């Protein structure tokens, strides 16, 4: 049994429920025969990937849905072997070069050259070029991006690239200027409500508009998350009403508990306890940025207005440190300690900032 997210994923441009003008634009690009390199960016859960898959289908017909997974082995200059997974159909190929970390340049160079140098042999194919979809393009190293830029120009008859990224900040300017930027905004809460309503209808579940609204609000305009929440509520409750509680994901619940502890007791002992919780989160592969961000917003909601900018300031500061440093736990702990300190100072009325 597939999850709702996968089962109800729209397969064609017509089936997409929101951003109609964007779908129209993609359709006309696909039909025009002159398809540029694309750089699709937007927050997660906004439907970037779904739109791209639908566009590919518009370009090549249903053939793109027959996908297979290959494992390829690449050899780096220092003779290290890299295993790399490629999802491909006859017409397109999907890669996540960030998987191989610093060696992504090797993969990009070898793989793209190989694709670019082979002509489309299938005469019935609608397009002469093959499309390579690169996931998480904003995690590519500078070297890999520099290697991309020449490839994009040199092999443009046989190859089109679609880059997917969460933000364009980490994409170097030469790449940005060579691609057509497509912004996919997150769906509004109204869009999410209507999507949930459609999902409920398709599944034959009872509708609860109030609940839909609450889910939309809770999900932070992330449709994937909204659908997962929606499904879990229906799975847990026999009868769903407008007031059914929305169970938060367990990691979020844990962070909530942590936040409560921090606020209740500000002492080295409690810091020690928080540390074990943070370790727990990290060993369950919750990204440190997510941990810090969620914790910050939970804390900010509970402190006085005057303190909020200060908390955000330090949170941003330590988040930056996390990105630069190598040992994540130091910076998370430092943030907690810092927060305890400013909160304590504030409570004791010795504000100096």
């Amino acid at each position, binding site marked *: 049994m597939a999850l709702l997210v996968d089962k109800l994923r729209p397969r064609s441009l017509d089936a997409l429920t929101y951003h109609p003008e964007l779908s129209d634009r993609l359709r006309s690009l696909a039909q025009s025969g002159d398809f540029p390199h694309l750089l699709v960016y937007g927050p997660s859960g906004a439907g970037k990937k779904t739109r791209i898959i639908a566009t590919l289908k518009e370009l090549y017909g249903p053939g793109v849905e027959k996908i297979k997974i290959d494992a390829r082995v690449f050899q780096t200059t220092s003779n290290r072997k890299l295993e790399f997974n490629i999802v491909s159909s006859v017409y397109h190929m999907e890669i996540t070069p960030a998987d191989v970390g610093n060696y992504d340049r090797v993969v990009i160079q070898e793989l793209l050259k190989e694709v670019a140098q082979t002509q489309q042999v299938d005469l019935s194919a609608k397009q002469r070029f093959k499309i390579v979809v690169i996931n998480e393009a904003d995690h590519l190293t500078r070297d890999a991006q520099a290697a991309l830029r020449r490839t994009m120009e040199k092999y443009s008859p046989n190859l089109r690239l679609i880059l997917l990224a969460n933000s364009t900040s980490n994409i170097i300017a030469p790449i940005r*200027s060579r691609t057509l930027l497509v912004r996919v905004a997150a769906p509004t809460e109204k869009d999410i409500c209507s999507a949930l309503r459609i999902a409920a209808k398709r599944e034959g579940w009872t509708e609860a508009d109030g609940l839909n609204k609450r889910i939309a609000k809770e999900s932070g305009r992330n449709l994937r998350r909204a659908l997962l929440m929606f499904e879990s509520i229906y799975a847990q409750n026999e009868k769903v009403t407008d007031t059914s509680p929305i169970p938060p994901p367990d990691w979020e619940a844990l962070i909530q508990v942590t936040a409560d502890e921090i606020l209740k007791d500000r002492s080295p002992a409690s810091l020690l306890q928080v540390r074990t919780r943070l370790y727990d989160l990290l060993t369950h592969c919750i990204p440190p940025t997510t941990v810090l961000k969620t914790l910050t917003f939970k804390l900010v909601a509970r402190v006085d207005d005057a303190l909020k900018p200060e908390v955000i300031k330090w949170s941003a*500061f330590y988040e930056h440190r996390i990105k630069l440093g190598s040992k994540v736990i130091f910076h998370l702990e430092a943030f907690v300690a810092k927060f305890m300190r400013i909160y304590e100072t504030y409570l004791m009325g010795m504000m100096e900032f």
Partner: protein
Amino acid sequence: MASTFFNNKARAAAVSSSSKAKTETKEDTTRQQPWVEKYRPKTLDDVAAQDHTTKVLQRTLQASNLPHMLFYGPPGTGKTSTILALAKSLFGPALYRSRILELNASDERGIGIVRDKVKNFARAQLSQPTGLDAAYLAQHPCPPFKIIILDEADSMTQDAQSALRRTMETYSRITRFCLVCNYVTRIIEPLASRCSKFRFKSLDNSAAGVRLDNIARMENLKLEDGVVETLIRCGEGDLRRAITYLQSAARLAGATKTGGKDADADEDAEMTDAGADQGIITVRSIEEIAGVIPEPILDSLVQAMQPKGGASAFDAVSTVVTDLVADGWSATQLVGQLYRRVVFTETIPDIQKNKIVLAFSEMDKRLVDGADEHLSVLDLTLRIAGILRG
């Protein structure tokens, strides 16, 4: 006889759909060429708005002697175009291949390549021009040296650069080097002192405008009023970027047009004049392509940052920022636009501006390091709000 045969064949082909496909592919190849390449200046005179440099180079062209050169300046100001145009007019099509070696950052350019490929090319004896008539020589001076163009030289490693320096001197009889880079400070001193330097300044608006107008006319584009100004503004002195934006916009406008035509052709074969409703390029479409955040959104953010009585600005700012991030606007773009907005606001006293700019600088560094956009932007806006409150 033969002509009718071919005619018949052509006619038969025209009946089937294959001819349509052929003309389409031909159209494709011309259309697929980036306009940046298509409208690259062919001669030195075409290079826009670098009068000083082109004048000096014209003179060297007449004297048929060239120093080693170092071109530097911001991107999209015509450095590569200038050297390519110069090389073309020096050697012409017949000798271009044998006399020019062009290497850029995407080619492997470590110390090995410098020692091997560059040195070999620099060392090779000149191929004598044979079979060139007097007219050709009158047009192209064909001086007795080769040119090695190292594009984006600032991304070469220090080692590779120092390996170059002796090579440059030893073979200066038959080889000239031209280094092209953005930051002259990244070129090691021994190399820089061996070259005569040319600075390319940012394009002024009129020159860029003329060029964009030209391209629009040649491509038969319909532009809304103010599109050229928007392009120049979004390009920020980078003509290449402005041209790419123009092409993308034309694609979108044109794509909707051809898309409509195809659909119509299927339903109604007699509908032929699709050119009548050609897409018009609007200011908004350019801004969307460039990722510029619309003014109203920025207004609401600035509004939220204004001090309001005793209440903290936190809630107002946080709502706007959350929406901004969810809408996918790029944080770098936001920081840039907000900066311009704040710095040019007359009502903010200078002492506050000083502090605000400090916050901007720190945030820019964080974003480059890949810090989380939501937190960074929130921090920045809250700090500004705090400073504005005094």
